[in-house]
């Protein structure tokens, strides 16, 4: 298997490094950590490692997660494998040799602290080549606005798990759009629907992280 395809395979199946026992059929083999370093040592451009190795692997995980073929633990292990490879690419991001697709600012709305879904979306979007600025949980509109202003052209992602905090999401979107009319805002969370998205004036809703990844892809196409 070609090196970058091997790397994709490690991301897809969550093989972090040589010492990692998961997945059992890859025990004793190099993981994303070693393979990313090997690729750099062999002169593979850092951008190719990201775009042809890491991103396709994470995309396959996202699709399988949407289709209920894998569960949250596998996504988390894939994300960890991705992070272990990204450590080697960090200097290339800093030097500008590897360009991110854009910046994505994410947080759960005020009053909501359910962050597992938000974290999954963050991981998948980071894994698709975007820089993620994660503001955490219970994020005020003021903080979101401040971050959006400091990062022009970013995309804002809002998450809510409770029907009761959906109202806060509506108010947050309204305030953001009033102050930054061109700001792209995407929303997600278990109780949401696309009708609700339209009602509150957000730009996009997806019931799964991969949908958000695919939407962001259209913005930079």
């Amino acid at each position: 298997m070609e090196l970058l395809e091997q790397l994709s395979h490690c991301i897809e199946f969550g093989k972090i490094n040589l010492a990692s026992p998961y997945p059992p059929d890859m025990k004793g083999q190099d993981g994303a950590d070693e393979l990313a370093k090997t690729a750099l040592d062999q002169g593979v451009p850092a951008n190719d490692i990201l775009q042809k190795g890491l991103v396709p692997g994470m995309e396959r995980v996202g699709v399988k997660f949407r289709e209920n073929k894998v569960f949250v633990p596998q996504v988390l292990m894939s994300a960890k494998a991705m992070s272990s490879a990204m450590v080697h690419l960090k200097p290339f991001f800093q030097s500008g040799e590897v360009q991110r697709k854009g910046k994505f600012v994410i947080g759960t709305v005020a009053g909501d602290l359910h962050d597992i879904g938000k974290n999954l979306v963050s991981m998948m979007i980071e894994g698709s080549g975007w820089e993620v600025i994660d503001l955490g949980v219970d994020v005020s509109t003021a903080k979101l606005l401040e971050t959006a202003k400091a990062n022009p052209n970013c995309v804002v992602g809002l998450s809510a798990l409770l029907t009761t905090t959906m109202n806060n999401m509506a108010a947050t979107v309204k305030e953001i759009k009033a102050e930054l009319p061109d700001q792209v805002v995407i929303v997600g969370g278990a109780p949401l629907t696309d009708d609700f998205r339209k009602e509150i004036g957000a730009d996009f809703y997806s019931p799964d992280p991969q949908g958000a990844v695919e939407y962001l892809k259209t913005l930079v196409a």
Partner: protein
Amino acid sequence: MDTAWIESLLGYPEGNAPEPIPGMISRIMESAQGHSDIQGGTLIMDQFEIRDKSLIQVNSLEFHPTKAIAHQVRSSEKLAFFMITAGEGIETWSRSELTEGDPLAGYIIDLLGSEIVVSALDRMQDELAGKMREEGFNITNRYSPGDCGWPVTDQQKLFSLFPENFCGISLSESSLMHPIKSVSGIIGIGRNVRKTAYSCYLCEMETCLYKYRKKTRSAL
């Protein structure tokens, strides 16, 4: 609560999660006690009024738990307000794994923390039911702000009934409890109330995480 149950919450058929997940769950469950500090209490009030189908008034406080919940507790002669927490330790442990350690372990600890507080609350509710039974009363299901559309902001009023920092639980301005693995709410008490086996039918939120969970659990 056992390994297989946590596996099912992770999405796997019980006993079918691939390694390293079962081993990780076992290790986490063994250590969980050292990270938990379960505390809780109830406040039983007999001076209250339920009116306009969806309003509960206690002293000068007006709670708006929606029609569905008010209907369930409308025949109550007493109301038990409760608070319970699994403590700060489990949250710190989970957060530390999620941010600096193993995100999978952090996720499992987070799930386990929720299970610990729910199990503790089950026990507290059972004890309340036993005590009330001795006095000739039944109890209703428990309901929390956030359930069935009950505004979470009503938690501010609920907290005002208890001493400050009761059981180490505090409330933010946006009505979030700290520690995170905490639950507050009400239980109706009376001769003509009853606890139903499954009350999620009251709520119209089809995509609710807990509705899915209850359905799953009841099917096991």
